[in-house]
């Protein structure tokens, strides 16, 4: 678990990965696969569009290696825009690692990783933890520029919305194929946009395959204080993605909705 305060850490570097960036932070606290951190630039955080950002942004840890934590970024708003500007020599304020990560596959089950877009991130560190060759990996992206994100993992089968790389279609097409195949018992680990996670949850429910879903939600704090990040759970009520998740058993969740 993470220290009980914000840490100002050095940026080791920023690497380009097609449409994405990989932020490398010098960090001696190790995260478990599926955990995340709240990140904010140490300087000039705020004063962007609508004076934003104010709060830190949540990112899964994508890799833990050589005394660094790595995060997969895409410039999609005032927070990520500022974070993508960071370079070696600058600093980032970090709260984390946070949340409940992935659990090992059940007895006799092989890990089947399914990632969509920036959801690829926690699957990279998960593949590191499981070891070489242990997991089957399926990754989907919208186009070739985003498909560069697959370089974070090894031996991935690919799908792209525009057909520029791999299967022309969705990663869940590949997942359905795998689940119909002769692989033996699997446990699915998925991360990606809400419609993809809902498709995975529903497919695994139909096929009676256990799945662990790493969710994302807008959040101000990341440690259970604001009650903003909730997801509806089976049986009624809500769970907080930051402290009850971000990894949930598919069976614990209601239909996963998108907030446009």
């Amino acid at each position, binding site marked *: *678990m*993470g*220290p*009980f*305060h*914000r840490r100002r850490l050095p940026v080791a570097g920023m690497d380009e990965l097609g449409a994405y960036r990989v932020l490398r932070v010098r960090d001696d606290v190790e995260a478990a696969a599926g955990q995340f951190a709240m990140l*904010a630039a140490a300087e000039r955080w*705020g004063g962007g569009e*609508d*004076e*934003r*950002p*104010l*709060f*830190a942004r949540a990112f899964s840890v994508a890799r833990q290696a050589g005394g660094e934590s790595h995060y997969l970024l895409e410039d999609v708003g005032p927070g990520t825009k500022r974070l993508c500007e960071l370079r070696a020599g600058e600093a980032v304020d970090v*709260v984390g690692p*946070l*949340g409940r990560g992935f659990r090992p596959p059940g007895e006799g089950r092989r890990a089947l990783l399914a990632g969509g877009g920036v959801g690829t991130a926690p699957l990279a560190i998960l593949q590191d933890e499981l070891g070489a060759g242990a997991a089957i990996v399926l990754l989907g992206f919208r186009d070739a520029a985003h498909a560069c994100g697959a370089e974070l993992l090894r031996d991935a089968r690919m799908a792209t919305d525009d057909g520029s790389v791999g299967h022309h279609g969705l990663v869940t097409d590949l997942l359905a194929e795998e689940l119909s195949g002769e692989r033996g018992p699997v446990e699915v680990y998925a991360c990606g946009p809400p419609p993809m996670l809902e498709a995975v949850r529903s497919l695994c429910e139909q096929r009676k395959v256990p799945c662990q879903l790493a969710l994302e*939600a*807008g*959040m*101000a*704090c*990341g*440690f*259970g*204080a*604001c*009650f*903003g*990040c*909730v*997801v*509806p759970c089976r049986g*009624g*009520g*809500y769970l*907080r993605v*930051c*402290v009850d998740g971000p990894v949930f058993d598919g069976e614990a969740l209601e239909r996963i909705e998108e*907030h*446009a």
Partner: protein
Amino acid sequence: MSVSFCGLELAHPVINGSGTFDAVAAERAFGPVVREEFPFAAYVSKTITLEPRAGNPPPRLWEAAGGLVNSIGLANKGLDGYLREDLPALSGLRTRGGTVAVPLITNVMGSTAAELVALVEACDERQEIAALELNVSCPNVKTGLDIGADPDSLRAVVAEVRPRTGKPLIVKLTPNTADVASCAQAAQEAGADAVSLINTLRAMALAPAGPPGRPWLGARTGGLSGPAIRAIALAQVAAVAERVAIPVVGMGGVQSSRHARDLLDVGATLVAVGTESFRDPVAGARVAAGLA
């Protein structure tokens, strides 16, 4: 900088705003250090209602210019859940390296006088609870206005609950009113031991995409907090402190000891840190350290 407040001895003048820190969740996130180095001199619970409330459907948050619009919807386990599960876990919070006890203040809200009475009487029986805070930012069923927005309805509610407890009674005023000082005076006249303000200001945000004019928040409107409200908080705290003799807990957009000092300088006895804790889990301790 220890301070005495309604008979409670506090290590310093900084407490949390109700609903902006969950000690139980923080311990899950950060470990047992939270119980020994609690960032606040007293811990104010999230609003407890008689029945459990799941809260509003998401989205519950909107990052506004210099602030946050929230519409959480008073999610809580209800009175029984709080007394049975949370209270035992919360007693024994300490700060200053485990050397100083952190008193518990339970914030309660009822949509009827009867509900509020039931809550206050149940809490009065628990020695773990050091004080009560009344959340009166809820609509009056008859008038539709917040109970706390009108001095007369506020006076009546406080008068109803005052005899039910000997514990210190703090009234959390609403800023969404024409005359907060008169509301504070009414609370004092009805027997409140202290008042706290400001709560969030009624606010709205629109969805960034989709049909025009569509609210972003699942519950349409919410409350604004954070740096954007700091100047409003200062004005209201100053007005109230000038009007009443009972102690005032000042809050609203406090991000630094400077902001806390300003509230103390206009007459607050304690200050609360709320939204800033979301950016820095130990903001309370940081603000307190700068006041020493």
